[in-house]
């Protein structure tokens, strides 16, 4: 799965993210950051994978109904937009006192840049167990082709 992603990983696991965030705030990056980069742990988290004939985007949007999420593509920039209701409104009942509040709620927008040569017209998306999968096929002319070598 995305297990082999760990070779892309530059730091320790996400369990120490609060520390990383603290350090990021104290020592802002002096170098140039990607214009669309977000702090780690933003909602929803996004993974992108590539096969020979398609690119797949996984949006980890727990608790979001398919109709509450708006996915659009323009010039290889994928935009995911939606709104998540507050947890308390999911529970019927009177007063609630919060002890811990880590899940985000409200509106969100995220954009990611995709590789070139995707056929947005044939894109498909589906929602399962709180993960939205967006399947973006590559255009025919960009798929890898086998070239036959002819005998002289």
């Amino acid at each position: 799965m995305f297990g082999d992603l760990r070779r892309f990983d530059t730091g320790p696991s996400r369990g120490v993210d609060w520390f990383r965030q603290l350090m990021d705030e104290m020592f802002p990056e002096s170098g140039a950051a990607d214009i669309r980069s977000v702090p780690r742990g933003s909602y929803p988290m996004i993974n992108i994978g590539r096969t020979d004939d398609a690119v797949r985007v996984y949006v980890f949007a727990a608790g979001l109904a398919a109709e509450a999420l708006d996915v659009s593509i323009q010039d290889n920039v994928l935009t995911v937009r939606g709104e998540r209701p507050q947890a308390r409104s999911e529970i019927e009942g009177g007063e609630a006192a919060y002890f811990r509040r880590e899940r985000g709620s409200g509106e969100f927008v995220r954009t990611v840049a995709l590789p070139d040569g995707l056929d947005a017209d044939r894109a498909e998306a589906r929602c399962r167990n709180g993960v939205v999968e967006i399947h973006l096929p590559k255009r025919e002319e960009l798929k890898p082709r086998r070239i036959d070598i002819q005998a002289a």
Partner: protein
Amino acid sequence: MNEVSRQQAGQQPQTTDQQAREPQTEPAMLPPVDIFEADNALHMIVDMPGVTRDALRIEVDNNVLSLEGDIQLDMPEGMSAIYAEVRAQRFARRFTLSHEIDSEAIAARIDNGVVHVTLPKKQSHHRRRIEVQAA
């Protein structure tokens, strides 16, 4: 805390039950949690996207509630990653319960990647209204 207990487990020089410990040492993410109190119960709402009902394990052991879930994604063969924020295959988080929780009555359900755990308080700890008598 998760990190700490995992490291300690790894440091123990035992090799006999290393096999049983194997899944525990896999990297896990801490899922974000909301906890609030309502209707004589504590409610926990946990985000675990990609976790199905069968892949979710909730246990109470020695007054510690542990939630673990494996992320199940539909991944085609030969896929390589070009960008990833989710870099582990499972979620795991543990909480110590307070004594007023009735651990026998804990209930949980999962819907669209969101786990809702209800932890009712024991009857003796329910909120009571006390009548003030006229003098």
